[in-house]
């Protein structure tokens, strides 16, 4: 019974499940590129896929969170992203960069979700002035100086950032999320959004100009 409990709590559950015939030890995947690991998955190597999940789950969850602004939904959608990757393993072609493909699926899911729930979300923004009711956490309030007034100001500032990023046109919004928060370069963002590098750059420039204008009261 003890062993079972340990197994159940182990986050690398997939490895345990499919350890029977792995081609590589977990450590080896660090030296392989993502596309090669995907090729391994096509032959049934789940340990490699587990490695990819561990590598990308946090960035993808964060990306989703900033799109849908609800942690439970973000995690649900992130799981859906990985399930789609898994389901498409047979059709994956190595010439497409894995992370580009990953973010394209994530972007698509997030955008569709946002469109479907647009009405609900605009109604809920009224309550955003309160402590983050979406997540139950207040990530930005937990730091530095105490005092009700500065907390209020910080919350107000956070709400303004979220709202103005949300208000950006769809493609500008996605580009900012990938550029600012996922640390991706123009080339890769362009690949995800199917835009040229220079178009991506001007998209981002306009987005940041808008944000600077809207947020100047907080700078």
């Amino acid at each position, binding site marked *: 019974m003890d062993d079972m409990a340990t197994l159940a709590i182990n986050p690398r559950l997939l490895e345990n499940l499919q350890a029977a015939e792995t081609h590589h030890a977990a450590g080896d995947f660090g030296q392989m590129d993502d596309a090669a690991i995907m090729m391994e998955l096509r032959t049934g190597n789940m340990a490699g896929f587990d490695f990819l999940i561990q590598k990308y789950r946090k960035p993808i969850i964060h990306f989703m969170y900033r799109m849908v602004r609800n942690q439970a939904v973000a995690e649900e959608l992130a799981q859906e992203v990985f399930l789609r990757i898994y389901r498409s393993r047979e059709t994956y072609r190595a010439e497409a960069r894995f992370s580009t493909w990953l973010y394209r699926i994530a972007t698509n899911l997030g955008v569709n979700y946002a469109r479907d729930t647009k009405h609900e979300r605009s109604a809920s923004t009224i309550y955003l002035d309160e402590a983050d009711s979406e997540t139950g956490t207040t990530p930005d309030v937990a730091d530095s100086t105490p005092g009700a007034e500065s907390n209020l100001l910080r919350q107000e*500032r*956070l709400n303004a950032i979220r709202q103005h990023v949300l208000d950006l046109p769809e493609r500008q919004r996605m580009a900012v999320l990938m550029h600012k928060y996922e640390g991706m370069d123009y080339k890769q963002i362009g690949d995800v959004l199917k835009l040229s590098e220079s178009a991506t750059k001007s998209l981002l420039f306009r987005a940041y100009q808008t944000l600077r204008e809207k947020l100047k009261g907080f700078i």
Partner: protein
Amino acid sequence: MICKKYQSAVLDLLLDPAAPSNAAVRAHIDSCEECSREFKSMEATFALLDVWQAPEPSPYFDQKLAVRLREEQALAPAGWFERLKSRLQFNTGRQFRPAMAGALALILLVGGGTVADFTIPSHPNTEASATVQDLQILDKNDQALQTMDQLQDDSQPDDAAAPPSS
């Protein structure tokens, strides 16, 4: 007004101040008051955006995903190689089932009602759970990728400035 030539270079400089390719921009900004002001305000906006932190993934993300993947695996091993392999591993799979039950119990305990409609497949070919069926209703991946072309941007210049890259 900021010098047109350096407008978008401000972003490059923000991202990678030390890059040799940005030296000329840096030099201009240091000597041009307008551009310097532009750069500083963009820098401040950039820093302000850092305030928006995303929460850590919940501790049960991995288990939930493992369960869903396991269901997916049981449902449809894709290629002949995997089919063969899953047949060979059938006995191995069975011995892990109690562990999956344990994981499920844990998730149900912690996750409340949210994942309560899971059923444990007792055989790799049994009927899919409600969750998997829901997932199957969702678009196929190819369709998902196609809709990327429909991403909206209400500012016209985008489309004018963007030659279709393929």
